């Protein structure tokens, strides 16, 4: 699934030492851009994608033929206005949309990596993507932003490269994966590895695909992206194309049918091993731990302007976890704004048409850009 010709790729020649101790070099980073870089090169926004996102932020994704994952937020005249800003997004390493990942071949033996791919971290992802700045000759980004795992990368980015972005917008995220977050990710990984078609990660060479396991992983995760209220309002106990219960195990309820559909379409576009690797990277994320337990120390070197956004019904990365980042920033006198957006759409709110969110994001970016 990474051989499509619509994928732009940067080959990173420089060796990158990973947190696990291994070093990779000559590895591809697949990226996409929207809008154009101005002559001062000061209008670039680096967008980081979430667990199952990719570099195709907006418009029609040329691989899946579906709308890009952040089409509500990014585009001409939208919150991240591509008439004004140059948006760059790349597929994380470990991913499956062209960047170096477990479906690539190991240069040492030409076998597909599978679980021999090194375990990567959010820090590794960010360090790999930093190469894009050099590629485009950008000294300083106007902004870094992203939701969920994208937000984790935002935090790691500004910690690693404190003077490389003017503004920083982490959305619906956390500075440290909670036990509950890890638990849900483990559920997904167990679903994948329990699928007999997973073959210890060597499904490609065995001509199998652990689609059932991956679908279950997606179904479980999908529930965590929605709120109880949102689910109840959308589905309630409505039945799926039937008048009454069938006293069997088909999808009687619309919610069952919906989840099955979500699982099945996900399998078509995502790689099971990538799911293992990326969820692992999220679980390992603990920014405070990188600074001996003091989160503030991650940000002492930056003068960037932060704007943090959370959503009322997000129970996966709840407001308090976002506020903890605000508190860490305030305690060192950093320039930080914060708003919690009212929404019953759960964690997924940042991907959806939530006008108060999109307005806040647009206003923050545009006003900050005017002050440039």
């Amino acid at each position, binding site marked *: 699934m990474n051989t499509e010709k619509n994928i732009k790729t940067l080959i990173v020649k420089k060796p990158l030492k990973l947190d696990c101790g291994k070093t990779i070099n000559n590895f591809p980073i697949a990226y996409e851009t929207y809008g154009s870089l101005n002559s001062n090169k000061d209008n670039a926004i680096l967008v980081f994608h979430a667990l199952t996102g990719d570099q195709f932020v907006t418009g029609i994704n040329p691989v899946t033929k579906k709308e890009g994952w952040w089409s509500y937020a990014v585009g001409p005249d939208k919150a991240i206005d591509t008439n004004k800003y140059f948006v760059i997004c790349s597929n994380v390493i470990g991913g499956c949309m062209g960047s170096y990942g477990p479906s690539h071949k190991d240069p040492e033996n030409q076998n597909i990596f599978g679980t021999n791919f090194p375990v990567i971290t959010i820090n590794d992802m960010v360090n790999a993507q930093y190469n894009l700045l050099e590629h485009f000759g950008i000294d300083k980004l106007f902004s870094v932003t992203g939701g969920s795992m994208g937000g984790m990368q935002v935090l790691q980015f500004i910690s690693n490269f404190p003077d490389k972005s003017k503004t920083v917008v982490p959305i619906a995220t956390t500075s440290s994966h909670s036990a509950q977050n890890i638990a849900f990710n483990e559920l997904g990984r167990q679903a994948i590895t329990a699928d007999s078609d997973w073959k210890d990660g060597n499904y490609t060479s065995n001509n199998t695909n652990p689609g059932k396991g991956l679908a279950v992983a997606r179904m479980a995760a999908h529930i965590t992206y929605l709120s109880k209220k949102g689910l109840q309002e959308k589905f309630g106990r409505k039945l799926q194309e039937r008048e009454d219960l069938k006293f069997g195990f088909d999808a009687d309820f619309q919610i069952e049918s919906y989840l099955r559909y979500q699982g099945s379409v996900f399998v078509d576009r995502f790689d099971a091993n990538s799911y293992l690797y990326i969820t692992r990277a999220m679980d390992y994320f603990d920014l405070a731990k990188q600074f001996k337990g003091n989160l503030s120390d991650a940000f002492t070197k930056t003068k960037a*302007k932060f*704007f943090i956004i959370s959503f009322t019904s997000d129970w996966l990365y709840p407001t308090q976890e976002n506020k903890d980042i*605000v*508190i860490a920033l*305030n*305690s*060192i*006198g950093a*320039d*930080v*704004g*914060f*708003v*919690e*957006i*009212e929404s019953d759409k759960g964690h997924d709110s940042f991907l959806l048409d939530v006008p*108060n969110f999109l*307005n*806040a994001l647009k*206003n*923050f970016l545009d*006003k*900050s850009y*005017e*002050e440039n």
Partner: protein
Amino acid sequence: MKNEFKVIADLIEKDKKVLDVGCADGTLMKFLKDNKNINIRGLEISKEKVQECIAKGLTVIEGNAEKDLKQFPDKSFDYVVLSQTLQAFLNPELVLDELLRVGEKAIVTIPNFGYWKVRFHLLFKGTMPITKTLPDEWYNTPNLHMCTIKDFFHFVKSKNIKIFRSLALNNLDTSTINEGNIGVKNMFADLGIFLIEK
């Protein structure tokens, strides 16, 4: 911009770092930022007001002064402003202590319950006073701890808080409050403005 904000702005020197607690739609913040080059932050409880501030390009944190002031380090602002909100907190004393911990100085404004119109309203109508600075009915007012200029003056003194300036506002009239005239000011000012430090 209302006279109260002009008086507050006059108390703050250029280029300072200021926190506006309960900054509402950011009118004062915007004025201070644009006219006095103030490094300004706001804390506001209303989501709608926070959005208005963001639309003005202001740095605001959605939060509650009673819970969220504690995240700011000691003396991290030159001034902390609290406009007509002290009486609305569950624990005004705690908030006042926090303002003076976080700011080198604090500017606190008090809607005066000793204002003659308030007194007359209660005396002659026998119902809870409603005035320009106290516009709500008793059942929907956010105000929990109303006080007079005199109350606040004595309260601050009893806590050994230094008063640098105390001003009485009556519409567009601004005058200084002192020990000698406080009885009169407490009658004729509808708003008190205090610049204090601990």
